């Protein structure tokens, strides 16, 4: 292969990923006058973000004027079990409202309050109605607004183009990306000064997931291979309410918006079992009777939130416990009932896509009958470790934002905090990349050898005479992850899983893609199973290391949070010899005002006794 004959495209910045984070980052880069390219595995507007339902969290204070960034910040920290990056949680809470308003200025049409402002809805773990939303298709609104704005900003969009590997110069700075067009199979070399990774998570490593095929953890794997660190990767969120029937849609998401709109969880005895699962930390802020919960829903002041709106980790574990105790629904979940709580018209208006989804896929009319739901793998709290203000990773010139980055969510993400994460940190990553480029003296240059190597590795599955079927390999991986690294984890089980994953490595080295390179899903799959294996290994090993239960990470052999583990994050990196290396790193001390607000009694915070001196910017 002659590198000079490769199709070569030059940009200042290449954004990998066209979800909310990638698009927002690209818009920021372009606004600074940088030559900006965006690549994505699927067509524009189809990224995972399009599936988001419930809303994006921002303390706009429209639906309840008592809300402000401090309360949002405190909710986020509590939801993340205080393992979040303090500074990122601060930036997020402070900047989300401006980012949401900006979306409106770019054409987003959110549901309105009576006064004509952006309406907000309740969600688990958020003290006040905080989620800007559009029915239950908020992600569509977000991605379409960014897309329709973005196409006029001079950005080059390269659709159905997959990144294979990051390329660096001799000093270890980002200098390029090797990729290929899915439709033609043609290779492409991007020569760039910076890369912003916005590739989302890796939920496809599990069989029951709300995630699409794109979520194979490519970005995490590429960054890891290039020398970046992964952090908090053991924290994988199981959303409490996925569809459980029919089998082919098992895992498809049922938005938390159903509970936000008043939906309740029932076991097969008709009990609202969540009242039995309220954790210590939340007891004083959660209703203890059905009556109080209903009065809260009706908006009565001084009442406390229903337990169905506890954080996702809590609700997911409770559902699992009910099913295990034999109190589950016929199809192996629990009941989620909105039919008896809201009239049919309201349900169809507020939850149209849920109505549609159940009617079409499960033949259930949710305005008449309860849904059956159970936990589904949904989100990666962990990801690529970044600098809190610039979003740069340990690799010079490599930035990350959105679901593929770590820090904001700690041990558990609050619903709605992802969409706001995308626009806040997408913008900051774009800014960070711009500053990095300004300080660069000359463009980094990648030599020919690593380029040839990258493309040679990519063609190997096509050139092999025989080998493993990439689809069946993925099924095998699924079985391992479901059995060994599920919602409830145990040390010995994970160690066995790690061994099995190691054994899979040689099989994956030997996958065979039948057919040619032109739009060949077998080849695409063959290339992504490697990322999936790597991500699975990282989750399993970090999960095995963290000997406590915190947020989404639940260990039967180490129950409850342990103080010493609250002081560290686990970081995963590639050692010099190519093996996976784990390290516990001390968490940085938070600014004094942040720890005061984070741990404040809610009344003290709201009365201004605590947090009044915090800087607003």
């Amino acid at each position, binding site marked *: 292969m002659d590198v000079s004959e490769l199709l070569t495209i030059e940009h200042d910045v290449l954004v990998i990923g066209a979800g909310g984070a990638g698009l927002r980052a690209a818009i920021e880069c372009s606004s600074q006058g940088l030559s900006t390219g965006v690549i994505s595995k699927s067509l524009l507007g189809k990224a995972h973000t*399009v*599936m988001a339902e419930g809303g994006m969290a921002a303390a706009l204070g429209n639906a309840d004027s008592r809300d402000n960034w401090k309360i949002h910040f405190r909710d986020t920290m509590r939801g993340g079990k205080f393992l979040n990056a303090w500074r990122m949680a601060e930036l997020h809470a402070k900047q989300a409202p401006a980012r949401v308003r900006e979306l409106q200025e770019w054409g987003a*049409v959110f549901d309105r309050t009576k006064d004509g402002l952006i309406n907000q809805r309740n969600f688990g773990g958020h003290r006040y109605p905080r989620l800007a939303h559009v029915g239950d298709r908020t992600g569509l609104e977000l991605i379409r607004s960014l897309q329709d704005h973005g196409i006029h900003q001079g950005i080059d969009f390269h659709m159905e183009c997959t990144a294979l590997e990051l390329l660096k110069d001799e000093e270890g700075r980002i200098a390029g990306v090797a990729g290929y067009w899915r439709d033609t199979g043609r290779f492409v070399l991007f020569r760039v000064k910076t890369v912003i990774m916005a590739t989302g998570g890796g939920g496809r490593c599990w069989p029951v997931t709300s995630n*699409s095929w794109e979520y194979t953890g490519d970005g995490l794997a590429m960054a890891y291979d290039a020398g970046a660190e992964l952090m908090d990767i053991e924290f994988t969120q199981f959303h409490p309410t996925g569809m459980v029937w029919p089998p082919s849609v098992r895992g*498809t998401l049922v938005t938390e918006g159903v509970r936000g709109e008043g939906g309740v969880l029932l076991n097969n005895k008709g009990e609202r079992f969540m009242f039995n699962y309220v954790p210590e930390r939340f007891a004083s802020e959660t209703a203890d009777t059905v009556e109080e919960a209903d009065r809260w829903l009706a908006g009565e002041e001084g009442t406390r939130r229903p337990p169905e709106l506890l954080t996702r980790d809590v609700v997911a574990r409770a559902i699992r416990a009910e099913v295990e105790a034999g109190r589950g629904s016929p199809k192996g979940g629990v009941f989620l009932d909105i039919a008896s709580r809201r009239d049919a018209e309201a349900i169809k208006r507020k939850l149209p896509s849920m109505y549609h*989804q159940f009617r079409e896929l499960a033949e259930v009319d949710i305005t008449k009958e309860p849904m059956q739901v159970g936990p589904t793998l949904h989100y990666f709290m962990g990801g690529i470790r970044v600098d809190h203000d610039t979003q740069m990773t340990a690799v010079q010139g490599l930035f990350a934002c959105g679901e593929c980055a770590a820090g904001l969510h700690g041990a558990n993400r609050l619903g709605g905090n992802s969409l706001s994460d995308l626009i806040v940190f997408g913008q900051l990553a774009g800014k960070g990349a711009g500053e990095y480029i300004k300080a660069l003296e000359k463009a980094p240059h990648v030599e020919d050898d690593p380029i040839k190597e990258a493309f040679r590795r990519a063609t190997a599955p096509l050139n092999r005479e025989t080998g493993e079927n990439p*689809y069946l390999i993925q099924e095998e991986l699924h079985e391992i992850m479901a059995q060994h690294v599920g919602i409830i984890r145990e040390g010995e089980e994970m160690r066995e899983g790690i061994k099995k994953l190691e054994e899979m490595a040689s099989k994956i080295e030997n996958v065979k893609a039948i057919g040619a390179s032109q*739009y060949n899903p*077998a080849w695409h799959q063959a290339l992504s199973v490697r990322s999936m294996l790597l991500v699975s290994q990282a989750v399993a090993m970090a999960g095995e290391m963290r000997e406590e239960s915190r947020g989404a990470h639940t260990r039967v052999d180490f129950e409850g949070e342990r103080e010493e583990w609250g002081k560290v994050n686990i970081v995963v990196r590639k050692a010099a010899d190519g093996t996976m290396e784990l390290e516990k790193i001390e968490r940085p001390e938070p600014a004094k005002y942040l720890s005061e607000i984070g741990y404040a009694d809610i009344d003290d915070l709201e009365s201004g006794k605590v947090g009044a001196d915090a800087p607003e910017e």
Partner: protein
Amino acid sequence: MAERTFRIWRGDSEGGDFVEYKSEVGEGQVVLDVLHTIQAHQANDLALRWNCKAGKCGSCSMEINGKPKLACMTRMNMYEPGETITCQPLKAFPVVRDLVPDVSWNYKQNKRIAPFKCKPADADGKHRMYQEDIDRVQEFRKCIECFMCQDVCHVLRDRDRKDAFAGPRYMIRVAGLEMNPLDDEDRIPELKHELGVAMCNITRCCTEVCPEHINITDNGIIPMKERVVDRFYDPLLIAFRALTGRRKRTKLRTVESTKE
């Protein structure tokens, strides 16, 4: 479980043909599930698009037994037990491979539409609009860009007038802007001169296939045609309105009369 017969179009821009596959179909499965089974076990390189598997992204549109459908929302039990299922790519667009069409033309149409231009905020820095004024706009914004309406519109499909008409998807996109209380752009000249709203002759085929049940023709295209008439006094369309007995609409925006 029961065995079913599938005929799937395999080929590329050079040509191709239907290939028959037999596959087991499980309880509650949709067409996309079966295509995945065939892909995993019999045709590893079968090209198709999908993302969400829940009717939210519009990636998996194809023609199933001659009708444009989302493969992820088409349940197998909609068809007779012995019926053969035929899958082929959307016909109105060039094919890339197998079930994957080249839809890039649509993205080009989108780019031709002038971007949203936000009105200035109220004195307190906030933008206000009321739910009843945006219900219609939100209906149009439900579009998941499956391009099935584009596929069935005879102006694009049979007459291949892609040069003259941007298609129903983009008619409602403009309608969503035109009816947006915060949009300050004048959309009417663009609709008439560039996007070709007059090419539509209201057959409603687009509305029939829309998986989001957007009333493309009656709620989107017809009001846009009317606004064009109001502006340009197009005698043909005035006659049309007289025939269909539709009332003349008042304009939403005061600036309209000062432009042009």
